């Protein structure tokens, strides 16, 4: 790797990191480096200062308490997918298993994936489907942003230049609730051509009480498939009817590139929405 020259700092506290970030115009945070390092290498990004979050105490903590899941911004993909307390929320392990490769999973971070806001990353879909909330800390303030307002435009999240994503919280899915993530990998990069995360509460009868659907890879911004949620809520839908609904997701404005045309992405979105829904509903009913 042959990047442009940069300074490098390793703060031990979140406050210290926030101060460093505020103190240097254009400074960037280094989490796992799985996106930033390649960008530096290709000279697509440069920063006068990299603030390495690797030694900030507690930033990688994962816990489940009082009905809330808390994932530290610097927790690695591997830690999230293998954390024993997250095991019953299937979507975490299921997403981790199809995310990049073991090397990336051991270094890359959950928070980094959200902040980077790559539309084809996997966690954004999960973040949306589980209705997460991000805690953003700067040198002067702390605020919270919900999943529905988090992804703003291509590669742009609500996180400001001087903010650090310290933690993501999710309501712990309750009884009769199932989660799932299925994806089609872009064969070279491993990113999602289509990734669909579902969190659904369903009765034994199959009636869907509540559902949230997050989609990665299809649009330039990860999105929530509200139109499909609305058609499913309060009904028991399966088989051809489910396929028909899933094939018409109004929010889809598919990307078109050499790995998948817009038409193919739209088709796959329908197929994978069904696959995720069926899996999540079965888990809710189990």
């Amino acid at each position, binding site marked *: 790797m*042959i*990047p*442009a*020259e940069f300074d490098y700092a390793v703060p031990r506290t979140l406050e210290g990191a926030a101060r460093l970030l505020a103190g240097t115009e254009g400074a960037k945070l280094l989490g796992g480096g799985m996106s930033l390092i390649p960008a530096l290498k*290709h*000279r697509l990004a440069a920063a006068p200062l990299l603030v390495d979050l690797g030694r900030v105490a507690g930033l990688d903590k994962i816990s489940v308490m009082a009905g809330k899941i808390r994932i530290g911004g610097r927790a690695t993909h591997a830690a999230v997918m293998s954390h024993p307390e997250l095991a019953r929320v299937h979507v975490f392990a299921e997403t981790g298993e199809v995310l990049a490769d073991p090397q990336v999973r051991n270094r890359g971070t959950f928070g980094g994936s959200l902040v980077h806001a790559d539309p084809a990353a996997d966690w954004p879909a999960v973040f949306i489907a589980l209705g997460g909330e991000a805690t953003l800390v700067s040198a002067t303030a702390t605020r919270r942003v919900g999943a529905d307002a988090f992804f703003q435009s291509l590669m742009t999240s609500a996180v400001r230049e001087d903010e650090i994503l310290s933690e993501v919280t999710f309501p712990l899915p309750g009884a009769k609730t199932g989660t799932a993530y299925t994806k*089609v990998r872009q*064969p*070279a*990069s491993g990113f999602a051509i289509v990734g669909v995360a579902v969190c659904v509460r369903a009765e034994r009868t199959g009636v869907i009480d509540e559902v949230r659907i997050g989609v990665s890879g299809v649009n330039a911004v990860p999105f929530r498939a509200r139109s499909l949620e609305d058609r499913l809520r309060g009904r028991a839908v399966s088989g051809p009817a489910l396929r028909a609904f899933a094939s018409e997701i109004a929010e889809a404005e598919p990307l078109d590139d*050499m*790995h*998948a*045309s817009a038409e*193919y992405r739209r*088709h*796959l979105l329908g*197929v994978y929405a069904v696959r995720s829904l069926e899996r999540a509903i079965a888990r809710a009913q189990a």
Partner: protein
Amino acid sequence: MALKPVMIGERIKRREDPRLIRGMATYTDDVKLHGMLHATFVRSDHAAGRILKIDATRAKALPGVVAVFTYDDLRGQVGPAPCTTVLPGMNHAPHPLLADGDVRYVGQPVAVVIAKDKYVARDAALEVEVEIDAKQAVVDVEAALLPGTPLVYEQFGTNLAVHLAMPHPETERLFAEAHGTIALRLVNHRVAPVPMEGRAVVAHWEDGPQKLTVWTSTQTPHGCKQQIAICLGLPELRIRVIAPEVGGGFGQKIPNYGEECLLPWVSRKLRKPVKWAETRTENLAASSHGRGHVTHVEAAHDRDGKVLALRGKTVAELGAFASMLGPAIPTFTHLLAAGPYTMKAVSWEVDVVYTHTMATDAYRGAGRPEAAYNIERVMDALAAKLGIDRVEIRRRNLIPAGSFPYSAPTGAVYDSGNYQACLEKALLRFDYAAAIAARDRARAEGKLSGIGVATFTEICGLGPSTGTAAPARAGTWESAELRVEPTGAVTVMTGASPHGQGQETAFAQMVGDAFGIDIDSVNVVHGDTDIVTHGVGTFGSRGLVVGGSAVHMAAQKILAKAKRIAAHLLDTTEERVNVEQGVFGVAGGARKLTFADVASAAHTWGVAIPGEEPGLEAVARFEPTGTTFPFGVHFCTVSIDRETGQLTIERFLSVDDVGNIINPLLADGQRLGGIIQGLGQALCEEVRYDENGQLMTATFMDYTMPRAAMFPRIELDTTCTPSPLNPLGAKGIGELGTIGSTPCLVSAVLDALAPLGVKHVDMPLKPEKLWRLIREAQQQSGGAR
């Protein structure tokens, strides 16, 4: 070998691996010299255009920058880039080491920055302002031949580099009289060889000894020495080329490149060592590509499905310039056009065409995978047309076992073979009947399930030197020199230049067996032109067939002298000396000498032997009298997800015949790697340029390498038909896997889609492509699934 083999045929682990796996090996980029400078190339962002201005003022002003060179600095002093296959009548434009006024492909070197370290060099390279008046590029190889298309070289008035015609007098008559004909248009798309280690060069000119030492990641150090000498106008005597550890080549490191000639010039000019190691993007953009053929092939056949004649026209992408062997690669496509099948005539034409893209050159198989793909698709299409089973159509066409050496209508002479035995073994092992039954059950359940087959032969260890399109100024021989130490340990110096094949192990096994010594008493040295004084290199599956045969010859010479010395020491005649497992003795006699005893006597010369010189060493060159033809049969099964077009390879079996095998473990490794590379092309690998000649696959984010998880466990088996053309009976193995696996997978996919009426697909077999075929077929039949 004269002795009973002990190590030959054993699965001995690679001696190379411990140092490679533990990061203890020295690659070119690991070479660090005092005062070494670093080079970074400024490369063209445009596929076609005229350079209006190059301004390096800002770059030169950066601290640590030593020099920035452009073509104006090179003019008349160094270059052009090596090309040793300027075919008769070819429109050939010498390729300058840095762009001379025009740029012709994205990634073409325009300037080179020399700085104290690679970071400053890269910073400075970004500060070199290059203004290019971009022109319309031509990328599509067939469009390149149409009138009015932009020209890569205005002076030729055409993009046709050369037209090759290889007619057979009987072809037209056979077509006219045939029961039927079939015609196919087949695309063998462009791929990137992608060795794990990219290209790298360290050049060091020393004024004292007046000597240039070049470390370079190459398959052909001796050829490289020769080409640098020509390029710089230096005597070869003043040049030493070292290929240290080389991390894969796959043909990409056969050609000698402009950078390998430019860095020595820079070192000489600045009187400092200088290093360059390419980035992965440079490797994907500006190191040679492979394949890139569009072929129209027609077959004339009789009522029973026997092919009578073949007629082909290939349009071959040369790229923006003629790389070292580039123009000659399609000639192998003709030479192997008939595959393992009898036919009476083959006529082939090739248009070798310039486009605004990186040059193509040899890539694992180099012309033979293209040939095998063409003829296997013909066989499948013929089977489909006549309603004959795909194995049966091959049985009817395979060259009979008793007819070797076999003269094909292409002019190729096949050394030996028993295709039927290989096919029968594969059928048994695969259980073809059971596979068909399983496929038909899956189909009955509405699934898309297919079986693929390929029976193929290929060409390895090309020779003789007089009769081949070998690189100019290089024969098809290989050298070996064996030096026996007083202790009986042996140093082997081979002209082969292994870069992953494992010849350090295989050659040590051979020499150990020849002299009855331990494998650890054999040291194999390669890749240094000052130590191995003559050599050709490792490519075209020749390392063992040709290089190993030279080692065998040298060992026999040593053994002959050792016997004469032993006879003298044992007070007997040479004829009465027996050698067994390295022990010399006389029948019935109690006195024995070990190989070490003889070696010691040869060096100490305490007992002078009349008519002999002291010492024990030998030099040999093996010149092949002909070319070997390994062969094999591949079977696979696949399933395709109807809803998404996603392809799963469920089983893959490869039964190959490569003659005698020295080390089955190494042979398995070569075959597995080859099969995966061949499947990689069929499945996912593809170099893509957009219509402006911008490279769309410039990183691993977009260039899809095959991954282990894409494949089932590959099943391997062999038959053995030794080659009569070399003392080892070996046939060559390095490229075999890429030759059969590609058509085999396409065969399976077309079989899976056959119930839908799909008759044709081009590689790569990407899910979207298969989904569209499925959808179109379903729409045409008006049916839901």
